[in-house]
């Protein structure tokens, strides 16, 4: 592990093996190479010397939960200070890293087959919507896809979906590791926003190899092709035709209560009214110009006021269940677990209760 961490740090700082060998007073750069390749172990003195050379804490080498360059993130954010984003990424990385390490130690094998969809940058928007619909059907998301999405992502796509409290402006992220996928969602966002963010991140998880997403998504108003495809995929996933058909008779554009109906159906489907309106455009039920005019009114704000303020509990049931097993087997201490989530024991016990789980804590 230390060799990998050293190599990542050295490369990140643009330092050659020869330069590092000189700083460590090694006879040749081959010694650095041997350390990085796991042929030779580092001594305690060398570890400390490396923390001084690279100005990092010892924890950088010894904390097994750090991803240290192993994870690729794509953040959905708007106007967030880069330092704030890096700070939150460090925190979130440790959650994901802990899950990965403890899952391995518990012998819970990741799926051998990774899910992927057949979309490329050359795919049309219609292809993206159709693929979203197909995924909704294959994942058996049912009549309210948004309600089943977290469970499906965790059970069928082998991901973990973590609800978090990042700085305002960070909606969420997708994180790709060789052995697993993770999605971070800002739980303080409205329900409809969270549904859309999750669907959007699922697109990235399913297309990462073909269309690696940008590190920062949402920097410019002009969306990239990949982000536009992601939005269309999300629309198909959350509002597939087989679900929409059940509501179309209520959504008569000429009807006097159209606005009210849109708000009601959108709320039932856990999406925003604006997303539902644009879906009606895709289905040929609403004129694009009319839709644009409608979405510029305030009639659909918070789905006409129907969207209740509701915040899901932190993290996820799957994450907490795994940590409970790890505690039981003595793979992590209770204080280490509490510091990982920056919670007190009381808050941790309450978190297990919020997820309907029995607390594994004994201290």
């Amino acid at each position: 592990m230390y060799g990998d961490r050293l190599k990542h740090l050295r490369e990140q700082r643009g330092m050659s093996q020869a330069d590092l060998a000189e700083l460590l007073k090694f006879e040749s750069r081959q010694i650095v190479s041997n350390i990085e390749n796991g042929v030779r172990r580092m001594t305690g003195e060398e570890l400390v010397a490396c923390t001084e050379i690279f100005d990092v804490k010892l924890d950088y080498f010894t904390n097994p939960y750090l991803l240290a360059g192993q994870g690729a993130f794509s953040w959905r954010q708007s106007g967030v200070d880069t330092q704030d984003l890096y700070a939150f990424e460090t925190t979130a990385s440790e959650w994901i890293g802990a899950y990965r390490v403890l899952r391995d130690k518990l012998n819970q094998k990741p799926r051998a087959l990774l899910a992927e969809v057949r979309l490329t940058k050359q795919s049309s928007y219609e292809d993206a919507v159709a693929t979203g619909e197909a995924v909704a059907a294959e994942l058996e998301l049912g009549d309210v896809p948004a309600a089943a999405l977290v469970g499906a992502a965790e059970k069928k796509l082998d991901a973990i979906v973590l609800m978090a409290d990042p700085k305002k402006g960070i909606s969420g992220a997708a994180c790709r590791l060789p052995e697993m996928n993770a999605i971070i969602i800002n739980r303080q966002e409205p329900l409809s926003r969270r549904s859309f963010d999750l669907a959007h991140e699922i697109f990235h998880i399913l297309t990462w190899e073909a269309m690696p997403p940008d590190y920062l998504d949402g920097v410019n108003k002009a969306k990239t092709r990949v982000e536009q495809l992601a939005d269309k995929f999300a629309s198909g996933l959350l509002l597939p035709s087989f679900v929409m058909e059940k509501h179309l008779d209520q959504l008569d554009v000429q009807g006097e209560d159209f606005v009210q109906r849109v708000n009601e159906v959108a709320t039932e489907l856990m999406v925003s009214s604006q997303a539902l309106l644009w879906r009606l455009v895709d289905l040929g039920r609403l004129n694009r110009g009319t839709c644009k005019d409608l979405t510029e009114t305030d009639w659909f704000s918070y789905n006409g006021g129907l969207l209740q303020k509701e915040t899901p509990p932190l993290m996820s049931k799957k994450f907490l269940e795994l940590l409970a097993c790890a505690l039981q087997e003595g793979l992590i201490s209770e204080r280490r677990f509490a510091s990982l989530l920056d919670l007190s024991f009381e808050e941790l016990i309450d978190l297990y209760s919020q997820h309907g789980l029995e607390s594994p804590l004994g201290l």
Partner: protein
Amino acid sequence: MKRGDVILVDACVIIEAHRTGTWAALHKGFALETVETCIVEAQTGKANRINQQILDADLRKCFQSVYAVTDLERAVQAANFEGDMPALDAGELDLWIHALQRDDVWFLCGPDRASMKFGCQVGQKEKLVSLEQALSMLNVGTSNIKGHYQERWLSDVKVKFTLGLH
């Protein structure tokens, strides 16, 4: 173990002994020692802390020694256990790093499963003691201490980890 022996205590033990009103008896009955990080955690830890006003100086006076573990000591142990350091918090880990460098007679008192498992793995099972056992030696009542501080819990954990059940 006998009265007056050296017992290394972690933050949780310090907190539990204060909660149960057994701290005075404990530090008078044994030569308590700990590490700086446990002293800090016991007073300001996010997970839990001593639930009463106590002066730092007064707390420190209760210990025979409080060790400041250095980064070099941590790094030497980390190098020994490359890639397989126990997932303990800073105080629990420092206490073990300090303990493993000692060659005198000592005991270690802690209520956490992962910390006790590590003790068994490094061949120190016989040096693990429960708060209940220590207090019983001093004839101090232990009826209100939590399960993880009881002798039965520790014995159970030792047996399970020794037999490889966990």
